[in-house]
């Protein structure tokens, strides 16, 4: 049943699947790298972003507004969570940070369920991206191709922020050596707030981008959180290129295994992670020595 056209379609599909994972994992890895906080609520924030987009879309019927709303709303939520909770945790053991974000995730998911019910909600693909493109090897939804463009544009923007701005310099320095950044007298408090809020914003944005593809439900973030962990482990913590490459690898694994042996596609993802751990524990692009 596997033909060359199908193979090429799946390779392409792996690319778009991967692109979405890159977007979700990026927020996770930057926050992780800079703040040393692994945000177990990242998946819940992703879901919340999708709901914010859903509400905004309901009022305006504009996908662009929905994207902006998802991002902005989560920026604010990120600020609230950081100021209200996470800030109390920088001096505490990493395990406590995990626990508190895990608790926040429960509250957010059940809060979404209380507010919106368990029914699946939809944001339709924007009118400019509706329809199907003939890729010669296969027909492919226009929106998924546009997602590639949207993700690429966001990554270019993020790359610019990380590598061309003062904030990016601090973030990258923080990933390299947190103590040093503190010693240099940089206003860490504000940087941490900014980074955490931007991480939440990235999650929310990814939620809206994904909404036309998947369905919006309170539990939508659970699987993607685990998958982005895998991406971060494969790519290496705090690494921009690690997230990009790790995400694309994960996407290809999911797509190509699904072509051959669908029931194993998730399992293969974890097998790949195990392989990376054995051969290169710090991840493909990870810095050696950093835990």
């Amino acid at each position: 049943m596997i033909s060359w056209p199908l193979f090429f379609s799946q390779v392409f599909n792996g690319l778009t699947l991967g692109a979405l994972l890159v977007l979700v994992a990026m927020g996770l890895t930057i926050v992780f790298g800079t703040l040393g906080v692994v945000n177990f609520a990242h998946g819940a924030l992703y879901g919340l972003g999708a709901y914010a987009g859903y509400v905004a879309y309901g009022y305006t019927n504009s996908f662009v507004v929905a994207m902006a709303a998802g991002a902005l709303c989560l920026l604010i939520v990120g600020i609230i969570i950081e100021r209200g909770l996470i800030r109390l945790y920088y001096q505490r053991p990493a395990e406590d940070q995990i626990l508190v974000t895990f608790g926040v995730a429960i509250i957010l998911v059940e809060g979404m369920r209380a507010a919106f019910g368990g029914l699946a909600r939809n944001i339709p693909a924007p009118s400019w991206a509706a329809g199907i493109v003939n890729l010669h090897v296969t027909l492919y939804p226009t929106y998924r191709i546009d997602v590639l463009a949207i993700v690429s544009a966001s990554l270019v923007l993020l790359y610019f922020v990380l590598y061309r701005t003062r904030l990016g310099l601090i973030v990258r320095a923080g990933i390299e050596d947190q103590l040093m950044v503190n010693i240099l007298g940089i206003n860490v408090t504000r940087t941490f707030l900014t980074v955490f809020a931007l991480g939440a914003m990235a999650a929310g944005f990814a939620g809206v981008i994904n909404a036309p593809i998947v369905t919006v439900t309170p539990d939508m973030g659970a699987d993607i959180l685990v998958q982005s962990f895998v991406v971060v482990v494969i790519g290496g913590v705090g690494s921009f290129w690690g997230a990009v490459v790790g995400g694309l690898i994960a996407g290809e694994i999911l797509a190509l295994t699904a072509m051959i042996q669908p029931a194993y596609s998730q399992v293969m993802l974890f097998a790949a992670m195990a392989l990376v751990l054995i051969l290169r524990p710090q991840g493909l692009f990870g810095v050696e020595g950093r835990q």
Partner: protein
Amino acid sequence: MTVRAARPAALARRFAPEIALIVILAILPAILPHIGGTYDIANRILDWGLFGLGFDLLFGFTGLLSFGQAAFYGAGGFVAAYFLIAPFTNNAIVALIAGTVAAAIFGVIIGYLSLRRAGIYFAMLTLAFGEMFFFLDISPLARWTGGENGVAGVPEPSLGFGLFTIDITDPGGLYWLLVVVFVVGFWVARRIVASPFGTVLRAIRENTARTAAVGHDVPKYKLTIFVIAAAYAGLAGGLLGLLQGYMPPDAFYLDTSGQLVVQTIIGGAGTLIGPLVGAAVWLYLYTLLQNIAGIGALWKMILGIIFVLLVTIFRRGLCGGAVVLWRRLRARPAPAPAVASASVKPTRAAPEPRRSTQRPPPTGPVVLATRNLTKRYGGLTAVDDVSFELREGEIRAVIGPNGAGKSTFFNMLANVIPPTSGTIEFNGDNITGLGATLVCQRGISKSFQINQIFPSLTVRDNLRIAVLARSYGKFRPSMLRAVDRDATVNAGIDAAAASVQLAERLDTPAAELAYGEKRRLEIGLALATQPQILLLDEPTAGMSPAERVDTVQLLRRIASGVTIVIVEHDMDVVFGLADRITVLFNGHKIAEDTPDAIQANPDVRAAYLGSQAAHESA
């Protein structure tokens, strides 16, 4: 330490927690109907409690937060259930053992992979591997696990003891089975906590790097406790299938791992009994909240809020809080130190008279040598081609202006960082790349510039950790003997405490020591491993002048039995102690001689002055 005949009072004291547990669990059935409980609920709580015992050893005592315990709970449960329905056996005991062993084997595999990374990485990895087991369960292994349906029809437990068999056919009987298993499990866990093995686990939680540096094989200890936790989970999983005649696929769900974490935090991590209490609270609130009108589906959110509040402001949980309260209520004016310092025999000889530069140069055999040792960081060469020899009994100081490469050199000696090229030899053996743990086991111990002690443990336990590394080797899973009953270790602790003048502070938590005392404890930790070579990294850093004088005397006393390399900024200390001095500058060794000769050396002068000038102009 007399051999005790089973004196009732002593036995009662020894098993007090277990006896208390048995009494409470024995009265419970009489109370249950009045508090709206059933055997079934009690059984589930005990099962969660058993599951949690392993997790608490892993998280509460070793500091390893796993979000993947469901993998072992499920694996143990399904293997046990499969053994009974296949049926490979009719004996529930055999099935439970099979499940436990299977979980432990999976524990070895997942532990080996997950423990390659620590801290938050570890939490992510265990979560991901836990999910992997879930996906394996529902699809590829569905033939054996029933996939989403789970395994129904697990027979009521029939416990075969060879000569006779016990059939358990009602929840009441199951309750007693679970009570027995839980109390035994609790006893084993408590023994582990109080054993030398348990001491090392707590050391890992408090300060992993230092535990490794005093010579414990940390990865092995971590893997062992991970496997033990997996085995507890597997046993609890097997019992879950037995207690409801049905092994549910939920055992593998992420929610199961999450619920275990939440219950443990609510009950109190690091208390062993916490997970049981947490499970009771969870199940009670689950039932209670749902029956309050208007809450219904919100029960989980409310539990989430309670959890976040607990983590934020009451991290000890219910049992941890109770313990603190109990200690506070019992707190009386601190009694006089139990151990009179006079009774402690110092291992080393009495203080020597002040060493002077007139002391004859050491002539013993070379014990430590480096050959062309080099360390490069990218384009920067921190240590460049340094060869160096240290003779037995010598006190050697390594000095040099800031950025000379002293610390890098020092860390390479202790095998904390690997050299780019060159070798290190100890007693003629090449020890390059062995790592700090093995090097410490061989007899090179390092004290750190920034205190690396175990803050919430007492001075005694701090020293015990180091002494254990010497007397038990890098890894010895001695889990069932009481650590405080080992006379050799106790003697080692007393000796180390005496030599750093902390004999009267043995029962004080390290965090409560004065700064100078902490510094001495830092040295004491290195000393307690009874090294042949002691590496001291700025031992007097941050001390007042008076404390420095004391420390110099202390070091001189210590030095009578041990070879010392010291990095120090304070020149009074250096020249007061050292037999010979090695000077590093820009990564090169520029001089090596007696203190007098070094003082007169023009190159050294130039190096210091030059760097001083450079600093001022910067």
